[in-house]
């Protein structure tokens, strides 16, 4: 009998989503979709607001990585006040913002790995759902230290954000053309030598330990980690000078599945010449693509996996070493293994921890030259690499300083097609020809989604929400039955 499977809500992802999988009479998957089911309408309702509100207002579309939106909006507004496109700020302002951003990367990556993803790795995808969470992790004696480390790493990142932005969530540190404060010596010393054990060296050490943890898991589960939801794609991110990893500023680069450059380090103020978005009726989340390749072939991945494919090196020593090991696993070719995203994310966590230490040791972060102003422009575009991938903010303003147009392409939106591909692949592998759909099969679909760390909160800025459903349909597409995950036997 044909079935439709729904997994709803998809949990342990940060936001709202829903998956539907349609099976025909022969038990073959004929359609699978990840629906984003919320919409907020930011693009419209920020119109008329003064542009300097954008950094504090628009960040409220996501409480998980608000700093990313805060800074992307600030970078766009920098252009409007004539402070350049990321390198026009004073050294102090630039470095305080970078510190805030790397604090954000650290806390967000720690949250994802320790709180959301590690239960799948440590307890198994098919473990009892009641146990598959961070609380159970903390209650298991052998993993308690790990859970504590996750909590403390997130705390360190959040404290860095508080010191630079004023608040841990929805802060106000970045303003048009700069920042509104720098660090005191006392604050800096706390982060460098703090006991709690809040210091940058401890973060570097724990990030390295987390990479070791992942690699041990990889050794024992090579087939699953390498083959689970693996598929080729294009990859897109910002890269810094000489192709170095830089998560705050750079040029836009894309490579194809073979590593050939298909977007050649363009100035992102020109993004509209290269990127378009498709609308599909079944999701509030749009589908971005490279216009030169078209809707069908132009989709790409963003985020840790993509960034380690586009960049050529990492400019901090320990992360570079980890990067070399990672690259040698694929002989330098682009990595298309979905579960390796966790590995890539942890290498970035190490990079963030090392970057934080370097910034803290830089005397510029204590100085008080905070603001730049120049010739006013009617339009500004700000991009950065948020924890989950490339984030685009674009504003136009009128002579009264009111926003007249806002366009946002958030990280998770950039990963829309890849997540749909992942769902399709896992569904085909796990569910084709099966007479009964089990809970572990459904969790496997969620694991594939979770690897992209989808921040559906961001993605739904547009009005939206994510649940997982499996539904029975006949060959004419008529609904026979629909069951959610917890309604008993499916």
């Amino acid at each position, binding site marked *: 009998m044909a079935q439709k499977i729904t997994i*709803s*809500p998809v949990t*342990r992802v*940060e*936001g*709202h989503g*829903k998956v539907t999988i349609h099976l025909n009479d022969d038990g073959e998957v004929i359609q699978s*979709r990840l*629906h984003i*089911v*919320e*919409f*907020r*309408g930011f*693009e*419209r*309702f*920020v*119109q008329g607001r003064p542009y300097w509100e954008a950094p504090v*207002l628009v960040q*409220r*579309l*996501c*409480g*998980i990585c608000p700093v990313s939106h805060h800074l992307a909006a600030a970078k766009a507004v920098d252009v409007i006040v004539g402070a350049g496109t990321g390198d026009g700020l004073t050294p102090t302002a630039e470095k305080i913002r970078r510190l805030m951003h790397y604090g954000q990367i650290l806390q967000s990556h720690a949250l994802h790995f320790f709180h959301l993803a590690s239960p799948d790795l440590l307890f198994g995808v098919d473990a009892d759902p*009641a146990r598959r*969470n961070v*609380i159970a992790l*903390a*209650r298991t004696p052998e993993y308690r230290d790990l859970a504590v480390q996750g*909590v403390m790493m*997130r*705390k360190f990142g959040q404290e860095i954000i508080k010191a630079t932005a004023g*608040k*841990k*969530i*929805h802060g106000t540190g970045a303003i048009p053309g700069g920042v509104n404060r720098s660090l005191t010596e006392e604050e800096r010393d706390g982060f460098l030598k703090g006991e709690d054990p809040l210091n940058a060296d401890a973060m570097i050490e724990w990030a390295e330990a987390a990479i070791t943890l992942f690699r041990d898991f990889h050794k024992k589960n090579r087939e699953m980690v390498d083959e689970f939801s693996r598929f080729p794609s294009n990859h897109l991110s910002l890269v810094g000078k000489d192709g170095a990893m830089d998560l705050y500023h750079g040029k836009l680069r894309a490579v194809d599945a073979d590593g050939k450059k298909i977007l050649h380090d363009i100035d992102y103020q020109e*993004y*509209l010449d290269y*990127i*378009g*978005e*498709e*609308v*599909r*009726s*079944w*999701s*509030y989340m*749009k589908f971005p693509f490279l216009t030169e390749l078209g809707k069908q072939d132009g989709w790409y991945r963003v985020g840790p996996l993509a960034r380690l494919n586009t960049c050529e090196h990492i400019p901090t020593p320990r992360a570079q070493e980890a990067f070399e090991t990672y690259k040698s696993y694929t002989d330098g070719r682009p990595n298309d293994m979905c579960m390796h995203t966790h590995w890539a994310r942890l290498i970035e966590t190490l990079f963030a921890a090392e970057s934080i230490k370097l910034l803290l040791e830089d005397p510029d972060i204590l100085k008080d030259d905070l603001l730049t102003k120049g010739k006013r422009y009617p339009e500004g575009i700000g991009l950065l690499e948020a924890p989950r991938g490339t984030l685009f903010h674009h504003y136009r303003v009128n002579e009264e300083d009111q926003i007249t*147009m806002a*366009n946002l*392409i958030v990280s998770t939106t950039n990963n829309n097609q890849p997540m749909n591909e992942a769902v399709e692949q896992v569904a085909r592998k796990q569910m084709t020809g099966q007479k009964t759909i089990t809970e572990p099969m459904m*969790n496997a679909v969620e694991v594939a989604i979770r690897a992209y760390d989808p921040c559906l*909160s961001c993605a739904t800025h*547009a*009005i939206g*929400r994510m649940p997982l459903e499996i539904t029975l349909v006949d060959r004419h597409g008529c609904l026979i039955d629909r069951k*959610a*995950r917890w309604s008993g036997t499916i």
Partner: protein
Amino acid sequence: MQKPVIATASLAGCFGCHMSLLDIDERILDLIELVDFNKSPINDIKEFTAECDIGLIEGGCCLDENVHVLREFRNHCRILISMGECAIMGGLPAMRNGISVRECLEEAYLNGPSVRNYNEGKVLPNDEELPVLLNRVYPCHEVVKMDYFLPGCPPDAELLWQALTALIHNKEMDLPYEVFKFD
């Protein structure tokens, strides 16, 4: 004695209030000794499996589905709390109140500079799988009775901690002025 049971939900919110709850940092390890968690986005419990003592609601209602979830929480939770500005008064998403839903959708899917040239069919999301958008964003207490209101965008971690521990220990909330933040 059985531990108090807590459930949480994010409706039309940004998850910032849930993140603020995590900002109690290492005390989260104490909290899990004091209470059991039921339906919540931080675990894999998708439907209520027990009656709950405390329900924490982030976000107001902007979809028909938010209303269903909120009513379900009211039915299963002895004490229901509006956590943060969006639950209390709609918050930032309520900036769309006064603008028609159609205008919001058209801006996002027809007029935006990166969609304008590529939406030949003038498609707007309207699939039966998508919940229906409400005409405006509603605060929670306009939909069901709410018992407590914890302000802030998000509420300070300290405020959440003190309010929760008071409820857990059956004590009156003693919330000093400093922990209230309205920004």
